[in-house]
């Protein structure tokens, strides 16, 4: 590897060190002034840090973000899903499990008795949303923080998926994060 020869100033070292210290010190005092101004109640000025303090603050999500799935409801509250198995078929991770049932309304073909998504397997590709002929499954809840202490806790059932609401326009979730029933403390 060839390196560019150092100039005399660089070899002398002290001047360049002082320049570097000047840069970091300028950052320090500029940010310190901004922090102080905000602490004294001037909210309009620039922020002293680029940090987003995550659980309290969130950076706005894109409207196209693929987040936790939800099942869309009909007006009577039953799932819009007709248990056609398209999503289960297209899913590359095989994480959707559907058991179909007869719908009481003869105009609607079927209804899922069970609709489980194993989020421990899901790869968030969004193929299920694209495959659905009834627009019954969407990934627009804005919820990213789902977790569990067990693999079983990552399986979200039909009732949990039906209870979720779409996110606000800025991407903030509207529904609280659903806690799996078998989640351990």
């Amino acid at each position, binding site marked *: 590897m060839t390196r560019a020869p150092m100039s005399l100033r660089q070899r002398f070292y002290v001047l360049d060190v002082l320049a570097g210290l000047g840069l970091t010190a300028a950052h*320090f005092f500029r940010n310190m002034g901004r922090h102080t101004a905000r602490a004294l109640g001037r909210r309009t000025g620039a922020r002293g840090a*680029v940090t987003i303090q995550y659980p309290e603050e969130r950076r706005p999500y894109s409207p196209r973000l693929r987040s936790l799935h939800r099942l869309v409801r009909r007006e009577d509250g039953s799932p819009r899903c007709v248990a056609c198995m398209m999503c289960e078929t297209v899913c590359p991770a095989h994480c959707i499990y559907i058991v179909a049932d007869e719908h009481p309304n003869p105009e609607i073909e079927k209804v899922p008795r069970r609709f489980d998504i194993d989020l421990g397997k899901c790869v968030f590709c969004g193929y299920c949303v694209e495959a659905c002929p009834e627009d019954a499954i969407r990934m627009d809840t804005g919820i990213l923080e789902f977790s569990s202490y067990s693999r079983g806790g990552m399986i979200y059932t039909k009732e949990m998926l039906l209870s979720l609401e779409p996110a606000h326009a800025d991407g903030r979730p509207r529904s609280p994060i659903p806690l799996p029933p078998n989640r351990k403390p």
Partner: protein
Amino acid sequence: MIADLGIAFGRVAFVMLFVLNLGGLMTWVERKQSAIMQDRIGANRASIFGFRLIGLFHPLADAIKMLTKEDFRPARADRILFPLAPFVSVFFALVAFASIPFGDTLRLAGRDIPLQAVTLNVGILYVFGMLSLGVYGVMMAGWSSANNYALLGGQRAAALMISAEIAIGTSIMGVIMIYGSLNMQDIVRGQGQYFLGGWLPAWGIVTQPLAFVLFLTAGIAATKRIPFDTPEGESEIIGYFVEYSGMKFGMFAMADFLETVVIAGMTTSLFLGGWQIPYLGAEGVRLPWGWAWPLPHLVVVLLQVGAFVVKVCVMIFFMMLIRWTLPRFRYDQAMRLGWLGLFPLSIANIVLTGLVLVAWSHR
């Protein structure tokens, strides 16, 4: 008798608490200062009853965490030296500050109280002795851990300490020549004179600018912190404390912070006028054109102690700034800087100072 004991205890307690608290606070300063320099916020989550107090509880949380962690000793580590090493490190870093004066003599109720933990007429030698003994703790840690990386770190620490220490010793020789004393208090008093018709305080940084740069560089090397953290070498050998856990590991970190405080105190005393405030004499403020404002003795002494504390804090800020600006020197670069840069330059500084002093006395 009781009063004397109380005064002696008070002097020691002040220095002890000052150094220990500053060392503890420096974990917070390090996090916050680096964060603000890098457009971040820094640790601010530790809270007591919901009060976060800009992260000031984090040192406390760290201490509790380290005290409750497992204290592990490798099976082949030395039984005596391994647990002893962190204590040796911290002890010598703590006692080094003892002969650094934090104020002039305080006259209170007919007594003369020197504001200094111990009044030594060879104070500088004492501080050096303690600083250099500090490396024994590091070497003991490296050797007794029965770990090759730790041994490598200890050996690097010894090599770095020797090259830094020689530069420290020779660079302050100029200061000793100018103020004519090994007593830290006398050196600080000597910096109360003025040049240029009473305008320029004769601080060490004015009379010995080259020595100031050399001393500070070598001093930072003696603290074993970045950019001279080759003994630690976090990304390559982890260093002499690789086998330590819990509070013993914390004590090594603490020793580095305490050494930083000691170096800041020494730089303040030798080069930044110690407790001197420009134009503030024992009787009060006296500006060069003759305007005077007499102040009571106690106020003057308190102002001077305050000035010393402020100067030490500014030096710590500056050393932190260096620590968070420069990358680490490679081992050979650190050695070359110590032996081929700092040492010859400080010898040249001694010669130059001698010539100037001779010329000055034959004016």
